[in-house]
């Protein structure tokens, strides 16, 4: 661990703290339909969209209508992407003449991008055409993020409103999320990334001669090993910058290239790396402020933010220290940080990022259900590898995905209020709304869906032939790989331990189902809670009101997230990363 490393982590944390309020206020103004400085440009476009689509701007929806609109929109988007993938060969902007995508992979990818997961079972540069990347994948980066933000706002409205049967209009919320919240920042972000060296073109891939020819050994099917001399390489190109900004800002994480944010065309400099991390947390962190503003309890917003911040910092510290410590099995290797090397466990890391920025990126991307990676998670030390795993297992509530993080966190808030709220001698209340059996039922359902899906699919995978077939490393690490894949899918994160070969019928299909369950089966109960809370009377605050502000509540929220979220997975974790860590210390690796 180095002073420079700590400085970068703290600098990052400071920037997030600083942008939380401006971002939160901006989102508040956008969704409360107050004027913003972008109105002169965007308002006419907005009106045009409504007129073209026949959307009644003023019409409010019940939670059920809101949910149906969201499902219809997502289903249509999913189908669109599936179709594009299936016929990309016959469509323009396919200079590499990449083939149509196979059905199971096309399904998996369509689900993955619709659910804001961006799990990639494929290598993009050799699978997806430019058109598929732009019209299919980048479109979904915007669409799924806009849906997430709209839902979060609808849920906040549910908490804030009283005796109301409606929670907003899905089409209006999604449109405004797209136009105001996502588009302008993505445009500016893309330009900034271009300035750092991210490419943006529609050229065919470049063929470059190697300065030094390489000799590789290749094994023929008959088992004879043959030497081959390589003199040239293909350098993939494409409209990267435009997709890169929204990939981070919308916490999507699906890379334009297989190497994702480790690829120099996606993430060329330490500055672009820092900028990308800031983009990830910008909206999720800002939304906590919006929560406070809309519900009229700014201190509650900060209490939720603080709980997230604490969990984030703990994750970073654990990951950074585990990585900086390096791998004890490499006894003969000098892994001390010095002027000439970052030290620690550099396996699977980019030299331009080093230990601190890799550990920080890993934590941020898994806290926020982004899933972009700038290093190989499979190569992390067991304890550092457990950090992203736990981050996702907790339900993607440490800032979380755009919108999804906040509404996921609100489920834990409701559970925390319900469990501990009784201890003040009143029916539990959340900001004046009584938490009753329907709300508890829905909150439990939302939690249940995620843990059940992860555990059942992983359990089947590790005892079935087709499941075990994909595991690249045996033993405890293999269990981590499978667990990570399903956790990442259900949590709509999309990052991978990568060791697992998931492009098989079993994994493509079940991971797709897991992503759908993790997204929509969580959203529906949460929307139901929003509808139920909106309809309730609001009990005015008094000394007897359960405090959802201050350090005490923050501690309580953290405890509930950890106990309810993590206890479920403790047995599985102990056989995976914990065992692996102990084995590594004892001198065994996989």
């Amino acid at each position, binding site marked *: 661990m180095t002073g420079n490393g700590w400085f970068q982590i703290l600098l990052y944390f400071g920037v997030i703290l600083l942008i939380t309020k401006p971002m939160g206020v901006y989102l508040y103004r956008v969704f409360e339909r107050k004027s913003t400085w972008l109105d002169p440009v965007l308002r006419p476009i907005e009106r045009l969209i409504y007129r073209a689509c026949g959307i009644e701007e003023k019409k409010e929806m019940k939670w059920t209508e809101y949910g149906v609109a969201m499902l219809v929109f997502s289903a249509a988007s999913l189908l669109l992407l599936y179709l594009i993938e299936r016929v990309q060969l016959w469509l323009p902007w396919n200079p590499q003449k990449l083939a149509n995508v196979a059905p199971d992979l096309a399904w998996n990818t369509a689900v993955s991008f619709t659910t804001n997961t961006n799990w990639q079972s494929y290598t993009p540069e050799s699978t997806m055409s430019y058109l598929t990347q732009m019209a299919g994948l980048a479109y979904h980066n915007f669409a799924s993020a806009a849906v997430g933000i709209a839902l979060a706002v609808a849920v906040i409205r549910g908490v804030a409103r009283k005796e109301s049967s409606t929670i907003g209009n899905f089409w209006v919320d999604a449109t405004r999320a797209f136009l105001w919240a996502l588009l302008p920042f993505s445009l500016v972000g893309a330009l900034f990334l271009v300035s750092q060296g991210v490419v943006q073109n529609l050229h065919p891939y470049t063929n470059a001669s190697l300065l030094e020819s390489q000799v590789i050994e290749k094994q023929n099917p008959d088992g004879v090993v043959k030497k081959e001399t390589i003199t040239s390489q293909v350098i993939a190109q494409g409209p990267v910058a435009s997709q890169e900004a929204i990939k981070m800002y919308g916490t999507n994480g699906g890379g334009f290239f297989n190497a994702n944010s480790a690829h120099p065309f996606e993430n060329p400099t330490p500055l672009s790396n820092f900028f990308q991390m800031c983009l990830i947390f910008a909206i999720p962190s800002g939304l906590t402020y919006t929560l406070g503003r809309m519900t009229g309890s700014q201190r509650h917003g900060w209490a939720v933010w603080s709980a997230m911040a604490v969990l984030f910092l703990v994750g970073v510290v654990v990951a950074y220290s585990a990585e900086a410590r390096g791998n004890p099995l490499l006894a003969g290797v000098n892994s001390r940080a010095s002027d000439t090397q970052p030290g620690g466990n550099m396996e699977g890391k980019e030299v331009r990022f080093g230990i601190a920025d890799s550990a920080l990126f890993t934590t941020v991307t898994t806290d926020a259900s982004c899933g972009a990676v700038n290093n190989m998670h499979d190569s992390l030390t067991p304890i550092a590898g457990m950090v992203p795993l736990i981050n996702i297992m907790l339900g993607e509530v440490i800032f979380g995905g755009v919108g999804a993080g906040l509404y996921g966190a609100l489920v834990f808030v409701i559970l925390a209020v319900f469990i501990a709220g009784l201890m003040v001698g009143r029916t539990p209340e959340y900001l004046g709304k009584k938490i009753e059996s329907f709300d508890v039922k829905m909150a439990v359902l939302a939690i249940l869906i995620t843990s059940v899906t992860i555990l059942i699919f992983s359990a089947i995978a590790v005892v079935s032939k087709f499941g075990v077939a994909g595991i690249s490393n045996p033993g405890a690490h293999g269990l981590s790989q499978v667990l990570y894949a399903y956790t990442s899918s259900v949590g709509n994160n999309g990052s991978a331990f990568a060791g697992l070969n998931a492009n098989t019928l079993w994994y493509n299909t079940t991971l797709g189902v897991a992503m759908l369950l993790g997204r929509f089966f969580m959203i529906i109960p949460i929307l139901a809670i929003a509808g139920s809370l909106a309809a309730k009377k609001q009990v005015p605050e008094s000394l007897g009101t359960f405090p959802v502000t201050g350090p005490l509540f923050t501690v309580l929220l953290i405890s509930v997230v950890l106990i309810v979220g993590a206890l479920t997975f*403790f047995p599985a974790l102990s056989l995976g990363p914990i065992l692996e860590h102990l084995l590594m210390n004892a001198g065994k690796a996989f």
Partner: protein
Amino acid sequence: MTTAQAKNASITDRKILKTAIVDSFRKLDPRLQIKKPVMFVVEVGAVITGVVLVLEAFQHKGNFWFGLQITLWLWFTVLFANFAEAMAEGRGKAQAETLRKARAETQARKLRPDGKTELLPSSKLRSGDVVLVAAGEFVPGDGEVIEGVASVDESAITGESAPVIRESGGDRSAVTGGTRVLSDEIKVRITSNPGETFLDRMIGLVEGASRQKTPNEIALNILLAGLTIIFLLAVVTLQPFAIYSGSPQTVFALVSLLVCLIPTTIGGLLSAIGIAGMDRLIQRNVIAMSGRAVEAAGDVDVLLLDKTGTITLGNREATAFYACPSITEAELASAAQLASFADETPEGRSIVVLAKEKYGLRGRELAPHNPLFIPFSAQTRMSGVDMDGKEIRKGAPEAIARYVAEKGQIVPEEMQQHIERIAKSGGTPLLVAQNFRVMGAIELTDIVKGGIRERFDHLRAMGIRTMMITGDNPLTAAAIARQAGVDDFLAEAKPEDKMALIRNEQAKGKLVAMTGDGTNDAPALAQADVGVAMNTGTQAAKEAGNMVDLDSNPTKLIEIVEIGKQLLITRGSLTTFSVANDVAKYFAIIPAMFAGTFPLLNTLNIMKLRTADSAILSAVIFNALIIIALIPLALRGVKYRPLGAAALLRRNLFIYGLGGVIAPFAGIKLIDILLSWLHLA
């Protein structure tokens, strides 16, 4: 009943204990268990381990001794939870028995339309029938006195042995079936059908037979069921992970892990807490018509309290004499006393007493003076005495002013000032005049009940607003409100004002509680979220409220609120405790399960438990014993403290949250040591 109960406490307790033990086994019936999902899972687990135990014994496989202990302790876990519930029910059952005796069949004298009476059993009476009840007879059913006055012994219901007066008309007209008329004869219109009487309802309530789960209890049950499902899956899927890792687990280990993880502590004690909460109300002689009302009592935001009887002692007392300049205070006191001798009202008597205490005026022989007492009349609004050619009058300032004005006299300026000051300070001024000349003023003061101010302070700390309802003028009301420390008051209140006030508060989202007894209180009692009717009140009031206070003590509303809060606090604390316990159990069982295959995982065995078997068994035993250990707390309730929500939360989170994390580490370790000492594992 309260005194009788105290005497028989030890006998009843032993009887309750015996019944409870029997009931614990009876409650093993799966049809009863399924209503408590958490304990049902434990029971199913116990059956499974039992079956496996027998199968393995036949095949000479496995560790029989270990399996047997696990199975037994799982059954104990269920039994302990049943025992908790049975104990909670026990006291109510004992009480129901007493009540049943009061319900015994009696003969009723029904009045037929032709004016004749017919004898028929009380069970044949229908609502609307009119019966005659004479001295020595039992009232055959709930009803309203429509003719006559009688003293009635209601001890069968209230436990209070002093007879009460019941009369037709007014607010003291309700009689309850099973009570006994001691004197005179009354005509009663029956208002309930057999099986629906107050006594029937009471028996149902104390027995817990008609106990329905309250809204909050249902919500909590859902949470517990949800957690149970989650942990069930965590354990079921653990086996595939274990098989993959090459360390498959025994059924005993898996079931043990499951039972330790699911919230058995709160799952086992939840219904006992609810029953005990209702029972605490019954102990204080309050009958809640539904558990919902008890919960609502904990949520109350506003208490509407009648001034008289709740905040003040009910009667004004004379506290000072203010004499006119030409007259001594002793003279004034003497005149006032003379004027009050025949005044039987508490105010009148307090004047006599004050004069006696202050000036030693006592033992007067009045007869030789031939006094002529003038009683109070609504027209003159004065009372007094004529004797020895003196005409002494006392009354309200306006009345005396009018009286002296007849002879051209006026109330001196100085007295006017006294009158105003007294009214402003919450007192009631009276003037005394002799032969049409004002002698001075008497100050009557409303006496605020001792300790009431502190109670209101407590309520305020809990965020509950108190509101005094009074017929007094705003000036007096404000003064009393200040003295008593209520937050707000409604002066010159009419029944419809009360109703409007409740509606208004409810529209703001607040829950309102009130007490009442009169028929004109009934609509407000029905509108309030918690309406406590006085048992002495009218049938209409008792029907409208959702609680009846058998002692008819309006101050009890505060206690009811506290009981409601205590019920919720107990539930929340034990839930938190139960969930927090899981952390330690994981650290006991997970290493025990896998350390055999991966000795390295013993690093997680931070309690340093001796063997794998001992670790699992210790966790299961702890899990069972903690239920027994917490039964007293569940029945008694977590001690309620009048603190603000933030302070209360901090305190309870510290005790039950942090305590819940730490306690099992110590407990499991201790059991582990004991087990190895006893060579049990």
